[in-house]
């Protein structure tokens, strides 16, 4: 979820004019970190797979930002000032009256005129493409699998409350016995329920992140499966090599 769910983020910035106090790299970095709504990531291609020369509307979204302060009070340039070419990919706003994310401030006479290109990417490459801020994870609220032992001063049961995820474990087999004693330890048991606590940066809905992540996982596994099958079938070797080139590198 953190590493490979793709989103769209500003990747290239062309500075036409920058007389603000912040240097170009600084502003470019800040722009990159702005979350852009990425519900429709799917419809974009990765730039490297795209047939275009540098970038095109199929693999990127363009933004322009032109701000200039002429008044005596300094003005704030925020993510709201970014003008997008694609209405589906815009800077994330929490609500209608959200001020947007501050990029820089301009004093009288200062000007910022830039042109940005946002591309699709994954957080493996840079954290700006991560849809998630934090992902919590748990799979065994009752510690049935004994993957950990609770450190305690007197009584581990009293000192360690059950997490909210424990409520989900309605079925008997996931819980301890009602009389408090543990069920006999099943050393063959494997975790089969996983709880995620997903906090996104706003570019995608958490549920979509999870769905997309599982789909990616499935894809990967099936690719692996195909490769393994091909490996075992010597007749298909020729074919699998041909396929290998077009496959994703993982």
């Amino acid at each position: 979820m953190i590493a490979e769910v793709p989103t769209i983020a500003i990747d290239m910035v062309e500075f036409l004019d920058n007389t603000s106090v912040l240097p170009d790299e600084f502003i470019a970095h800040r722009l990159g970190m702005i979350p852009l709504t990425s519900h429709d990531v799917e419809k974009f291609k990765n730039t490297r797979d795209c047939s275009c020369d540098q970038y095109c509307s199929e693999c990127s979204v363009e933004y322009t930002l032109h701000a200039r302060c002429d008044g005596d009070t300094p003005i704030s340039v925020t993510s709201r000032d970014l003008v997008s070419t694609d209405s589906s990919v815009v800077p994330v706003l929490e609500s209608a009256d959200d001020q947007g994310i501050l990029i820089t401030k301009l004093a009288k006479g200062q000007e910022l005129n830039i042109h940005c290109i946002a591309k699709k990417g994954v957080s493996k490459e840079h954290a700006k493409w991560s849809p998630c801020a934090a992902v919590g994870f748990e799979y065994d609220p009752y510690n049935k699998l004994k993957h950990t032992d609770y450190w305690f001063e007197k009584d581990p049961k009293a000192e360690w409350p059950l997490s909210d995820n424990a409520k989900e474990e309605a079925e008997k087999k996931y819980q301890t016995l009602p009389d408090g004693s543990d069920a006999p330890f099943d050393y063959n048991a494997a975790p089969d329920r996983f709880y995620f606590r997903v906090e996104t940066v706003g570019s995608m809905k958490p549920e979509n992140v999870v769905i997309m992540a599982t789909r990616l996982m499935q894809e990967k596994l099936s690719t692996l499966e195909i490769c393994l099958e091909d490996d075992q079938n010597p007749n298909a070797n020729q074919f699998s090599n041909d396929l290998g080139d077009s496959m994703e590198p993982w």
Partner: protein
Amino acid sequence: MPPKRTPSTSSTRKTTRGTAKNDVTEEGATSNGVAPKRAAPTRATKSKQNGDQAKIKAEPNEIVMAENGGAVITNTPTTQSTTSTISSSGTRGRKLKKPKQGQSDIANSLDERVEKLMEAKKYKPKPKLTDPIPTLEDKWKLLPSFLRVKGLVKQHLDSFNYFVDVDLKKIVKANEMVTSDVDPNFYLKYTGIRVGRPERMDAHSADKSYTPHECRLRDLTYAASIFVDVEYTRGRQLVRRRGVVIGRMPIMLRSNKCVLTNKTDKQMAAMQECPLDPGGYFIVKGTEKVILVQEQLSKNRIIVQEDSKGQMMAVVTSSTHEVKSKAYVYIKKGCLYLKHNSLVEDIPVVAAFKAMGITADQEISKLVVGTDEEFYELFSPSLEQAAMLKLFTQKQCLEYIGKRVRISRRFGSIRRTPIEEAHEILANVILAHVPVLNGDFKQKCVYIAVMARRVLQTIIDPSLMDDLDYLGNKRLELAGQLLSLLFEDLFKKYNTDLKINIDKVLKKPNRAQEFDVFNQLTCHSDNITQGFVRAISTGNWKVARFKMDRAGVTHILSRLSYIAALGMMTRISSQFEKTRKVSGPRALQPSQWGMLCPSDTPEGELCGLVKNLALMTHITTDSEEEPIRRLAFALGCEDLNTITGEELYDHHTYLVTLNGLIIGASRQSQKFVRNVRIMRRNGRISEFVSIFIDDARKMINISSDGGRICRPIIIVENGESRVKDHHIRDLLAGKLEFDDFLRLGLVEYLDVNEENDGLIASYTREITKETTHLEIEPFTLLGAVAGLIPYPHHNQSPRNTYQSAMGKQAIGAIAYNQLNRIDTLLYLLVYPQQPMVKTKTIELIGYDKLPAGQNATVAVMSYSGYDIEDALILNKSSLDRGFGRCQVMRKYATVIRKYANGTYDRVLDPPLNPDNTIPAKFEALDRDGLASPGERLMPGHTLINKQSPVNTTGEPTMGGGFGGGADEYKPTPLTFKYPEPAYVDKTMLTTGENDQTLIKFLIRQTRRPELGDKFSSRHGQKGVIGLIVPQPDMPFNDWGVCPDIVMNPHGFPSRMTVGKMIELLSGKAGILKGELQYGTAFGGSKVEDMSKILIDHGFDYSGKDYVTSGITGEPLAAYIFFGPIYYQKLKHMVMDKMHARAHGPRTVLTRQPTEGRSRDGGLRLGEMERDCLIGYGASMLLVERLMLSSDAFEVFVCQECGYLGYSGWCQYCRSSKRINSLKIPYACKLLFQEMQAMNIMPRLVLEEV
């Protein structure tokens, strides 16, 4: 000329930066997972119950402690009211001796016993409701008030102000007359001197006043003219002139002559100056220079020490404006001698007495010995010796001394008889600071007698020997004093030069017009100006008269970080030799308490010799002696002339000294001292006058001289602080200022000596009825740099010292004007944050406004094995989000020169390729030939396409002659050399001194942390990045919070930096509660409170978290100490250090590879590596490394003569018969030839192998 394309004005920059920073902090925190703002806590990590248990366990203890402590405090006043109140000074005096019987002492011992009892049995008396609650908790608020009034570098400013306002006038007064040897009617008299406002020297500017920042940018000297008022004769006329300029003096920033004084922040911003900059330094030729504080032994004080032979001697370094000399009284073979540089041979002390008019042995012995039998026995050999030498009368003694005077063979000096010579020497040279008025030697006799007595005293009781390392025997010399020495010298030289010139002109028999000295006055002014500039810019202080020749007095102000600059201003360098292996001067002296920082000193050879001032330390300037002398006599000090020797050493008599000079004696010492103190507290004499009783030596010492170290302390009287709650309330309300506290006698300055005379309580609860003073705040014993450390009192002390050194290397914000500066090298952090765990010092010095570091979420655990030896694991996503990102700004400057023959440098537009494209090398250039802002620079790119004339000396040959004509130019471009690309930030065009066009480029590079970059926490725990791990692989807690840094727990046990753990705990609590915590020394947020906050927010009280591994997805087997710690990025970065080469440049002389990274040098296979290869027997590898890969050279050797030949030919034998070729190192061949040049004939004899 205005700077080219400066992007903005400074006032706006400030505001913008501020807000931007805040915003980013927030963003960064969220994304780093430090404070998940939007996340609602889903589950408590550890049970509340667990926490409650801990709380219950902890609380009873706490209550006992608190109430017990409280009882002690509340009880004290009650005990006290039963005892009679006695004067504070009365107890003070007795403290040093055995306690005398008296009401107070009984009460005291009772008090003590009660206290002991309570401590032993945890006795807890019931607190009464009526008991006063001693709060005074906010007494530390005095500190900001103090710093507001005085500033952080008050010592430098005070010293400079004193020099400019007072000392300058004194020096001129002492050297006011210039006369002529030729014309006796001529004279010139200085009637006044003053220093103007800083003004620029440009001829054509309408507004002459300029700002320090202009000087920095234009490489000017920030200086003001020195004006004198003169009165002189022109023929028969008397002419008076006011405001004659005799030179320019560099002005200390923020001193009262500086344009920055009393300016609001807004005005400062308009002048491009940072309001947080402490000032106290000079700007000379565009560089910021600090005159370091110099530590030396105090002048004009008797110091008894042991000489190399184990004999006692009393030494006095007397220093007056005219002379500086040392006089010794020492004992040799039982007899006392007087030693001085002006005497060829040491003379018996008795002879000196007799020469000064005290001829009776009886009188002498009374003066030295008094009535003490013990002393008398020690002294009698000296008397006998004088008799043996037949020294009875004054005349005999004068003659005896006169013959031993070192004769100065100065030209033109008047010849004197030995008697006159001796008289002169005794009166004016030996112990010159003791005045001899109208031939009255009494004072000097007493002085020498006291010296002699001190020697005898020390023989009897060696504990009376003076401690040279004791801070009370030290004086600090500041910029003002050093400049005054320099000015005096320059002024004297100016006057002698003037006199020579005057004589030269006046000698001419008939002049065309009346001689006016005014023209001469102005033409010498450059000497004074240049003298100042040279001394400050080189740091060589040369004063011929005092045989003073010090190097390294000034240093370039380090602008690495705000703290580095601040630390430099508080630095004290010792005059002690660093090579000597004595530990005394390096050791921490108990008398440094509260005056000098115990932590902040460098490691290595300068350890303990370079010190730093504590936060509240003040260094005195000279104050007038005369009123104090008069006051002393008025308060019952008896004049020396009225006292006989016997009375002098009477049991109750104390000698009264004023700045080391014995002025009289007092029989009621306690009362005398108390009265002087009352006068001082009432403001009748300067608050910096100190007085203390030296019981062992029976002296009352009053000091008003400059360079003493002192600090303000609250006065306590009758067991009660004079500062009351309502005073503090008024202070907070702004009704009172720090100076009012001084004026009201609530607070006073104590110097080191007087501090020893009092009993100072650290806290209100420690006040007993014997207490005389109360600390304003204990944490002020640390300096500004060590004050950054949170919980330093929990750390092992060397750790604090290490941090004090590292805090100065941290990258962060430097000043509000940092983006307007063009420094040679400037490091800036992209997103600096103020620390989560602050200290009061941090707020006081403004570190929270100009921080150098970031709050990193740290997991203390082992990870991957790339974290051994203090290496750190960093989160890649954190780096992506801007953690540890920094900017490096570099300056490239050049001057467009004009040459003597009228030629000058020129700047050309970039040349074009044949196909009209610009060559890659010149890509960054604009059409004016200068690199333009925003351009990307690659290695080898040109910054300015400058060309210089080939011929700069001869006549310019127009039209171009044959070879080397003046119109021929050679390219002298400025090239960008660093291996990584960078950007042009700014280009500046201006004129510097002498109207030379000056061009500066500011090059910017933004760097993201990489493997091997150095980071450090604030606890002396440095480490390099060992591995950068993608966020998914990082461990995370159940909220999904990931650490930015994983630190290996092995860093803790041996370092014992408990403060760091508490910092983490407080930081974590602060984040959860949404407030900043304090880690002030000897105070700060308590661990119990922090644990409680953690528990309240569902965390474990110990700061440990349940963490899931990012690699396996399973929970970790241990609970991880997890939370924010403030990390500093240090300036040592891999990018600046990484170096390797295959082949490259060689030195010209030896043809061996060059050395060092800057010259693309080779990596040396050193002696030890060579030894290894020899030991292993890898001879061919050795030959390859040491010769073939270095400086192999083929030579021809003639086997006939053994000399080196050339190309198969031996010039010596004139044959090519027996020539062999051979490969040897070029350095070896060079050695042979060099030896030949010295008439040593190396012959090579070759053998067949």
